[in-house]
C-alpha cells in the first residue's frame, strides 16, 4: 500500500513545450484519484511521469516517501493499464498475465495460482489459452487489468482504460472497476477525459487544463463548488449555463438580474457572499441545466423561445433562446411534466424559466474564479 506525493512536478519537452506546470498533489494510501481534463491538458503525461515512462523535467515524485524520479518503471511498485490494452499479441492470455511474474523468476506453481486467481476475479478463466486477437474489447481490457493485478503493486495506474469501449460496455466496466477497487484495496490513479467516469469513480478528482491543476476535490466539491469557470463548465452534462449579469445588493439581500428577470440569492449563498464581502456589480452567473425549471403562470422568470427539444428518455433537454439571443439549456425530468405540458413543448413555442437562489454560482468576469471559494 502506498501514498504518492508530487511536488512541483514539471514536464518540458525537447521542443520547449511545457506540458505540465508545477504539479503539486498528495495522494493518500488507498485513495482513488482521477485526473480529468480535455485532451492535451497534461493528465496522461503526469500519469506517465509517475509510472516512469516519461522523464520528470523538474520536481519530485515520491511513492511511499521515497523519491522515485530516477527509478525504472519496474522498480517503482506500480502497475499500469493502458488505453489500447497493450496486450502481447503473440502470447496467450495466460502468458500475458504471467509475463511479469516470470520475469521475476517466480516459481511456476505460484504463477499458476496467481494467474488463475486473477482470471477468476475478472471472469476470464475460459479464455486463458486464447490469444488476444480472439477476444472482444471488454475481454481484452480485463486481461490488461489482470496483468496489472498479479503484480501486487502499491499503486494502480490506469490511462483512459475505458475509452476504447462502446458506451454500454463502458458503463459495465466502470462498475467492475469500482468492485475491483474494493477487492484490491490499493491506491488508484485513473486518467480520463470523461467527467462521468471521474465523478463516479474518484474519491478525489484532479481537474486539469493546459498543464495546470484547476481544482482538486471530491466529486461533490467540484460539482457544488467549482473553483473557476473552467471546472464549472467541465463537470456536469449538459454543461453549466453561464450568464453575464448584474449582482445587486438591496436591503442587505443579494439579487441577480439575468435577462431582465430578478431572482433573489438564497440565504446560504447570500451569507457566503456577505462573508466574502462581494461587491455588487457585473458577474458571471452559473446555473446548471437541471437546476432550471419551467415557471408557473405569473411567476418571476426569463422569457425565451424553445429551439430544440431533445427527448432523452427520463428527461428532456430543452435548448432555449432568450430575447437577446443567448442560448441556455434546461433539463426537465419527464415525470415532472403533465402530458399536455409535455406535448406543448415544441420548437418555436414560448417558455418562461426560473431558478432558485440556492443553485447559483458566481464567477468573477475578469479572473473567472468562483467568488465564493478561496483561491487555490
Amino acid at each position, binding site marked *: 500500500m502506498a501514498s504518492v506525493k508530487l511536488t512541483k512536478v514539471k514536464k518540458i519537452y525537447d521542443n520547449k513545450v511545457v506540458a505540465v506546470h508545477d504539479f503539486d498533489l498528495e495522494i493518500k494510501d488507498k485513495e482513488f484519484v482521477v485526473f480529468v481534463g480535455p485532451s492535451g491538458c497534461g493528465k496522461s503525461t503526469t500519469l506517465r511521469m509517475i509510472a516512469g515512462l516519461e522523464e520528470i523535467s523538474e520536481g519530485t515524485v515520491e511513492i511511499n516517501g521515497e523519491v522515485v524520479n530516477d527509478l525504472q518503471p519496474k522498480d517503482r511498485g506500480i502497475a499500469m493499464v493502458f488505453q489500447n490494452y*497493450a496486450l*502481447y499479441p503473440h502470447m496467450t492470455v495466460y502468458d500475458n498475465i504471467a*509475463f511479469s511474474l516470470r520475469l521475476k523468476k517466480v516459481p511456476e506453481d505460484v504463477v499458476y495460482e496467481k494467474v488463475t486467481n486473477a482470471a477468476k476475479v475478472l471472469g476470464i478463466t475460459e479464455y486463458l489459452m486464447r490469444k488476444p486477437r480472439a477476444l472482444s474489447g471488454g475481454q481484452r481490457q480485463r486481461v490488461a487489468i489482470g496483468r496489472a493485478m498479479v503484480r501486487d503493486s502499491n499503486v494502480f495506474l490506469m490511462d483512459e482504460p475505458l475509452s476504447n469501449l462502446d458506451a454500454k460496455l463502458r458503463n459495465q466496466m466502470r462498475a467492475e472497476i469500482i468492485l475491483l477497487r474494493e477487492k484490491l484495496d490499493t491506491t488508484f490513479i485513473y486518467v480520463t477525459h470523461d467527467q462521468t467516469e471521474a465523478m463516479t469513480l474518484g474519491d478525489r478528482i484532479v481537474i486539469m487544463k493546459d498543464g495546470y491543476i484547476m481544482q482538486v476535490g471530491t466529486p461533490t466539491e467540484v460539482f457544488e463548488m467549482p473553483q473557476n469557470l473552467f471546472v464549472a463548465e467541465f463537470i456536469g452534462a449538459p454543461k453549466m449555463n453561464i450568464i453575464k449579469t448584474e449582482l445587486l445588493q438591496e436591503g442587505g439581500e443579494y439579487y441577480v438580474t439575468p435577462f431582465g428577470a430578478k431572482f433573489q440569492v438564497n440565504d446560504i449563498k447570500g451569507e457566503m457572499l456577505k462573508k466574502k464581502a462581494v461587491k455588487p456589480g457585473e458577474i458571471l452567473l452559473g446555473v446548471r441545466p437541471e437546476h432550471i425549471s419551467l415557471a408557473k403562470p405569473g411567476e418571476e422568470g426569463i422569457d425565451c423561445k424553445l429551439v430544440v427539444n431533445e427527448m432523452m428518455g427520463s428527461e428532456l433537454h430543452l435548448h432555449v433562446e432568450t430575447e437577446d439571443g443567448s442560448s441556455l439549456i434546461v433539463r426537465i425530468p419527464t415525470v415532472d411534466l403533465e402530458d399536455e405540458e409535455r406535448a406543448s413543448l415544441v420548437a418555436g413555442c414560448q417558455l418562461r424559466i426560473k431558478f432558485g437562489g440556492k443553485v447559483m454560482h458566481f464567477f468573477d468576469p475578469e479572473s473567472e474564479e468562483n467568488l465564493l471559494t478561496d483561491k487555490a
Partner: protein
Amino acid sequence: MEQKRHMGLKTLNRVSNTAIYILLIIISVVWLIPFVFILLQSFRVESTYQVGYVIPHEWGWQNYLNLWNSDFKRWYLNTFIIALASAVLITIIQLCMSYTLSRFRFKMRAGLMRFMLILGMFPGMLTMIILYRVLSDLGLTQANAVPGLILVGVASSGMGYYVSKGFFDTIPKSLDEAARVDGATRFQVLYKIILPLSKPIVIYTILTAFMGPWGDYVFARYVAFGTSAGYNVAVGMYSWLTNDQIARMYTTFCAGGVIVALPVTILFLCLQKYYVEGVTGGAVKG
C-alpha cells in the same frame, strides 16, 4: 434476364482466369528453363563440354564426384562460413540498430538516419581499393580472405536499418511500455516482445544477409586475389570457365551450380511462410 447476366459474368470470369493461368504457366516455364537446363547438364556424363542438346544421352553422378575431388569443397566451405557468420552478425547488428532508431529518442537521431541513407546511396564498389588496402594491412586478404570478407560485410551492416525500423515503427510503443512496467529490461523488450512480433522481418534480414555473401563475386575475387584457398564458390567456379578449362569442366561447373543453389532454395522453402504471417492482429484495439 438476371440469370442470363449472371451466367455471362460467370463465363467472363472463367475465360479471364484461364487466360491469366496460361500466361502464368508460360512465364514460370520460361523462368525455370535455365534451372532445368543446368540440372540436366550436371547429370550428363558422355562428354564434359558444351553440346547442342538438352537431355543427356548418358546419365551419372560423375560431375558431382569431380566436384568432391576438386578444390570445390574448400570454396564451398569458405562461402558457407562467410555467409553464415555474416548472416548472424549482420542480423544482430541491423536489428539492434533498427530497434534503437525506432524506440530511442536522442539528439541528431534524424540527422544520423538521413546521413546513413545518403551514404548508402554510394555504390560499395567505390570503396574497393581503400578496403583492399585496409584488409591487406590487417593481413586479411588472399588465403585469409574469409575473415576479411566477413569483416567487410558486417562493418557497414547497420546502415541497412530502414526496412526493419519501418516494421518496428508499426508495433505500438505501448507494448514496450507495458513490458517495461512489467519488469522487462530494454533488451528483454527487444527479444521477448519486439522480435517475436517481427518474425517476417527477422527472417527477411537473415535471408538477405545470407544471400549477399553467398552470391558475391567481384569483391570476393578482389580480396582473394589469385589464392585458391581464399576463393568462394563464385570465384572458384569462374576459374573453370577460362578457355583452357571450359571444355573439361563445363558439366562439373553445372553440377557446382546445382550444389550452390541447394541451400538457398531449401532456406527459402522453409522460411517463406513467415512472409505472409500477420502477427500483430489483436495487439491493440481492433
